[in-house]
Each structure stands twice: as C-alpha cells, then as structure tokens.
C-alpha cells in the first residue's frame, strides 16, 4: 500500500507547477503559450487552495475559491484570445516580440 499523500506533497507539486508556469510565461514567445503558462500558475494556486481546505480545518471555502478562480480564468482567457485574434487580424502574427511599437 503506497504511503499516503501529505499536504507537503501537494504544496511541492503546486510550487513546481507555479515555477513552470512562470518560466513559460517569461520565455515563450507565442502569446497562446504564454497564456497557457498563466493557466499553470492559476492552477498551482488552485491546488494549494484545495489541498489546504482538504488537509486543514479551513473548511470548504478553499475549494469554493478554486471553483471561482477556474471560472475567472476561463473568462480571462476568453478575453485574451479575443484580443490575440484581433491582433492577428492586423499583424498576421502572435509573436510577442513583434508587439513593441510602443516603447521608451
């Protein structure tokens, strides 16, 4: 019988997930990829919330929070994608390195 999964394991997992998300966000040039990185960060947080609510006496609010954040993330991505598309219409690219007309 495998050893029980503890809170710490979840925290480590979420930490790793979060780091990957940040890394992706900082390095990927494709806008979509960056948005995916964001998703990873949010989900890492969600894992925390759920894990805390499961392993401590913090009640279910954590899980509620997670649900909310999932919904919000969906909305956010919807808007983001809309913008990406409209940009693509104008510039035929979604490479973030091309998005530097305003600087200085």
């Amino acid at each position, binding site marked *: 019988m495998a050893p029980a999964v503890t809170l710490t394991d979840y925290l480590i997992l979420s930490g790793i997930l979060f780091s990957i998300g*940040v890394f992706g*966000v*900082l*390095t990927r040039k494709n806008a979509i990829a*960056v948005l995916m990185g964001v998703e990873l960060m949010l989900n890492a947080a969600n894992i925390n919330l759920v894990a805390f609510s499961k392993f401590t006496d913090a009640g279910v609010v954590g899980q509620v929070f997670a649900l909310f954040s999932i919904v919000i993330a969906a909305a956010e991505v919807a808007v983001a994608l809309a913008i990406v598309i409209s940009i693509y219409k104008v510039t035929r690219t979604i490479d*973030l*390195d091309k*998005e*530097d*007309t*305003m*600087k*200085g």
Partner: protein
Amino acid sequence: MYPCIEHCIWLIPLLPLTGAMVNLLIGSRLPRPVTHTIAIGTIATSFVLSVIAYLHIVSLPPGQRQFIDTVYTWIGLQGFRVGLSFLVDPLSVVMALIVSGVGSVIHLYSVGYMHGDKRYSRYFGFLNLFAFAMLLLVLSNSILLMFVGWEGVGLCSYLLIGFWFEKIENAKAGMKAFVVNRIGDFGFIVGFMLLFTAVGVRTGTWSLDFGVIKSNIGLVSPAILTAVGIMLFVGATGKSAQIPLYVWLPDAMAGPTPVSALIHAATMVTAGVYMVARMNFLYALAPDALRVIAIVGALTAFFAATIGLVQNDIKKVLAYSTVSQLGYMFIGVGVGAFGAGIFHLMTHAFFKALLFLGSGSVIHAMSGEQDIRKMGGLSSKMPITTTTFVIASLAIMGVPGFAGFFSKDDILYHAYISPYGGTFVWLLGVVAAVLTAFYMTRLVILTFYGNPRMDHHTAEHVHESPKTMTIPLIILAILSAIGGYIGMPAIFGVHNVFAQFLAPVFASGVRLPEGSVSLEWTLMGVSVLAAFSGIGFAYYLYGVRTELPAIMAEKYNTAYRWLLNKYYVDEFYQKYIVGGLMGLKDLLGVFDARIIDGTVNGTARLGRRLADFEGAFDRVVVDGAVNAVGDGIVSAGAVLRKLQNGLVQNYLIVAVIGMAILLSLVLL
C-alpha cells in the same frame, strides 16, 4: 563778538550747495551772467561768513576758541549717533577761510577762463558742489561727516577732471583719480573703523565725534593707535597725492586750469594734511605713525621735485611741484609741527593757486598750447601775468620775504629738531628745495623770457587776459608776497601770530624740543642758500648757456629718460596692479559662468539638456563643467528608457527580479 554765527555755521557749506543745485538743475536755462553770479555770490557769502566766524573765534579768549553747531541728528541709533554738526576752532576756521577765499577768487577767474564753454552752468555747478564738499570736510565735527566731504571732493574732482569728457583721456584721468582715491579711502575707512571699535570697546561709548575720541583716546593701546594712524595716513596719501598713490594728480591736469588751481593745488589735495592735523591728538600718541608720515612726505617731496626738473608741460611741472610741496606739508605734520604744516598749506594755497591761474592765463593766451618749449618771451606781451607768476615762483622757491620762505623754513627747522624727523628728513627737504628753485626758475625763464619759440600764428594771438582773470592774479600775488608775515618765527622778535592762533588746537599734540636761536638762524641760512643755488644753476643753464640742457640730456641719457618718464611708475602700476586685477576679474568671470553655474546648478544643466531635446539652445551647452545632478538624472532617464523596450516579457522579468530583490531585502 558775533555770537549769532554760532548757530548759522551750517550756512557756510549750505550756500554753495544751493548754488550748485540751482546751476545743475536749471542752470542750462539761465543766462550766463545769472549763472556765475549765483555761483560766485554763494561762495563769496560763505567767505564772508567764514570771516565773521574767524572774528568771532578771535574775540573769544584763547582757551575757549571753539564751538560746535549741531543742526540735526544724522545717524542716531541707540548707543551710536552722528550729528550733522560743525566744529569751529582756529584750525577749521583757517581752512574755511582758505577754501572759501581762494575758492571765490578762482570762481571769479573762471568767469573769464570758461567763457564760451558749452557746459558753462554745469562747470559752475560742479565748482560750487566742490566748495560745499570741501567746507563740509573742514568744518565737520566727526570723522564720518568728514568722510562725507572727503568723498564729495573726490567726486567733484572726478567730475571736473573729466569735464571735457569728449576727450577719452580726460575721462580716463578722472576715473584714475577716483579709483586711486578710493584705494586711499579703503585705508581711511579701515582706519576709522578700527578707531571707532577700539574706543568703543574700551570705553563703551560708540562715537566718531572728534571730541569724544579725543577725550577717550588715552585708553586705547598705542599699537592700535599706530595702526589707525597709518591707515588714516593711507587715506591721506590717496587724497594728497603722496607716495605711492600720487600718480593720479599729474593726470588730473586734464581738467580746466582753474580746477587744477582750486582742487588739485590749493584745497582738496591738502585735505590729507588737514586730516592729520585734525587728528593730532591721536598722532601724538602714535609716534611711529608720525615717523612714517615724515619719511613718506620727505621722499615724496624729493622724488616729485626730481621729476619736475625735466617736464615740458607747464601744468605737469606745476603738478609735480604740488606733489612735492604736499610732501613738505606732510614733513611738517609728520614731525609734529602741525602748525607749520598748516601754515605751509595756507601759503602754498596762495602761490600755487596763483601759479596755476597764471599758467592758465598763459595757456589761454597761447590758445591751448601747454608745452614750454614752444613758449618764451611772453613777458613783454602779458606783463601782469608775468609779474604775478614771478612773485609766486619766488614764493615757492622760498626766497626770503615771500610767503613760501617762512612756511618752508618753519617746516625744515622743525624737521631738523623734531625727534620724529631728524637729519635725513631735513636733508631731503633741503635738496627738494634746491630742485624746486631749479625747476621753477627753468619754468619761468622758458615761459616768459628768451626768444619766442611759438609759430607766429599763435604769437599774434598772444595777449594779456581779461580783467576777470588778472584781478584774481593780483589778489593772489599780494597774498603770496605778504601772506607769510603772519607766521614769522619768533627769532625776528615778533610773535608767530599764526602758530599762537592755532596753538590751542594742537595743545594736546606733540611737545617739540626748543632749538637754540643760533641753530634756527643756521638752518634758515641753509635753506636760503639752497633756494639761491637752485636759482643760480637754473639761470646758468637756461638763461646763459642755453645749449647746455640738450647736451646734458644726451650725456646723462638714462637718468634723463627715467626722470622724463617719471621713473616708469605709471607703467609699473598699469602692468602689474591694473593688469593683475583685470586678469583676476576675467578669471572669476569665466569661473562663475563655467564652474559655479555648472556645478551648483545641476538642475539648470537639466534645463540645457531639455533645451537640447528641442535643439533650441545648442549654443548653451556649457563645456565640461562638473554637472553631476543634471547629467546623472538625464542619463538615468536614458538608461531606464532603454529598459522600457516594449516587450511585455522584459517587463515581467524586471518585475520578477525586482520582487526577488525586495525578498532579499527582508531576508537579509
């Protein structure tokens, strides 16, 4: 006798002032007769008042021959007040007489001399203004008020030297006079500040009134008094053209001749002598200062005389002779014989004024020519001028019987016996006397005798001057002739009226040892000898062997050139002092524009940089001055701009790094 005068002394200076005001403000609209009537009238009235004051003083018992007329409080702070108050005692009354008397005469003379000048009224305005300032100077009851007159006469001298300012040299001469005088004034200011403070600190009474200082002077330490004495004397060297500040006086001859006569011979230049005499109670306690004065006076007397030997401009000769004579006066006051100094001041006022007026009349006749080499043989054409001029010359040479004889002899005698003088001073004086006799004789001969050397066009115009000019000559001639008798030394079996009259003023002054009668006779003989030897030598050179001077000039070329060029002192000053100052101010000018403006003013650098963004002030970009702030800010801005490169992920990286730094900030 006339007690009322005790309350209207202030009229003496005020009258010329009003005259000046009228002439300067509306004079240009007045007809000329009115103009000069006002001018002469006011100064003459002052003279009359001075006479009355004199008579009043005389009528008082010798002990109390002094009164003070305070008009109002000029500066009055708690614990320090300077009144606009006048001090009348034998000394000041004598000075007032000389100033207003000679002044009126010269005013009168000017009517003839300045006729047809386009700034006639302004001339008389300035002349009156001068009279006011000079009278203020001699009558004032406090050093500060005296300083007002002191500066006032300087101003008038500036204005009158540069009276014909269209000629830039005249303007420059005026400026030179003022600035050199200011250098002296610097000493004067320091002097009276030091005195003021010393007395104040010692006694707790803060005052600059002669009376107060006189009564408290004893409490001040001799060292300080010596310093004060010397600083005040620095002021005197400026005003009275002594070494090293005499250089302005010869240039001052650029002014109209009557001005040279009044200001630069008779009155203003003697202010220094008067000041020293007035402060006798101080110098009595500062023997070292006295010695300095005596030495400087003697040296000046000698050096100026040597320069006078070879000058060819008639007024220049007289100018250097003035410097030399002032040297005599300082010998007098320097050796503690204040009376003698003032005595010579008076006689000199007569004969030197006369000499200048005479030369003026000559120049007038020669239609502006001043070079004696182009003169000669004027005696026939202008008898009065010649006679009076000769009388004056005899006076200055110290020919027995004439005014100069008594005064100069008085000085030399005291110089010999006084502990502050001594043989050296006396010797210089005697030599100077020889030289004086020499150059005056030379001047007279070259100007009035021998063959005419002017072109005949000028020659035709030579004529005797009008009455308004000759009458003053005559008046002064009489004074130069007989003026000395009021100061005849006791050895002639008479009372030295002048000395006795002044005595109370100098009562607290220096006690001089009494020389024996025989000594006095001997010294007198020596000076007489000196005078005649000078005359004889000059006569031999310029009257008999007229070719000799040129030859000698060849022979002793170097010496001659040095003398002719006045020992190159002016050049020296020009090169080193003025040049140095000019260099310094240019340096500082640059320093201010570059360094200070650059360093302190970093934000202003920003201003320039900002301007550069608009290319508006490219000119303004100041060279490599330190400009930390401005540059720092701007370059920082540039750097941060580069960071802002439009790539959102860079922004994120910056944010992450920033957070990392913040994290470490607390963890460490």
